[in-house]
């Protein structure tokens, strides 16, 4: 069935280090993937997205890599800061014309140590 999963539930990094959060998906027909950050008590916040015709996309301090061969997605955060502490979700967009639903993984908690 459709599912998006994350490899590790918790990731602890030192402030200033780079963070890598991984995600595996199972629906090979999906063509759009999104990373969200969710802080305690708040709704998911869009970080970066990537479409299936790309392998890599960069934003400010963040990079998303997509490996369609092994159905793997990763989020890299450069120079991790305390404000990056949150739960990170990858989501897979599954939909047809004029519709779409997001399938989320369980989430990875990122803890940044000062």
């Amino acid at each position, binding site marked *: 069935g459709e599912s998006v999963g994350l490899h590790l539930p918790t990731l602890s990094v030192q402030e200033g280090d780079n963070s890598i959060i991984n995600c595996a998906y199972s629906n090979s027909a999906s063509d759009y993937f999104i990373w969200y950050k969710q802080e305690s008590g*708040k*709704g998911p*916040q869009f970080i970066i997205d990537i479409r299936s015709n790309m392998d890599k996309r960069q934003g400010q301090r963040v990079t998303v890599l997509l490996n369609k061969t092994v159905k793997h997605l990763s989020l890299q955060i450069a120079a991790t800061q305390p404000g990056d502490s949150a739960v990170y979700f990858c*989501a897979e967009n599954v939909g047809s014309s*004029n*519709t*779409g*639903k997001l399938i*989320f993984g369980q989430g990875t908690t990122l803890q940044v140590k000062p």
Partner: protein
Amino acid sequence: DAGVTQSPTHLIKTRGQQVTLRCSPKSGHDTVSWYQQALGQGPQFIFQYYEEEERQRGNFPDRFSGHQFPNYSSELNVNALLLGDSALYLCASSFRSATDTQYFGPGTRLTVL
């Protein structure tokens, strides 16, 4: 530019009651999706509304229903509440396309006693 707004912020109900949650989409967006997020889990898709019609539905019972108004705002209704309905209910808005980015509101925390 206002983002996605939801009301109320928190709600406490008892089993068997009915609840209505409200969502106003981000300016310029015409599509609203609803998600349920249990504690410690990722959000789960309930349904999506576009042009005042339910376009797609997730694996949720008929107790969950919705509505979209001409101004694109939306309501989520849950009847005959169960303890297991306790969760954070999230609304996300987007613009038409199936692969358009969905932006989330802060959510409504529903507690069923």
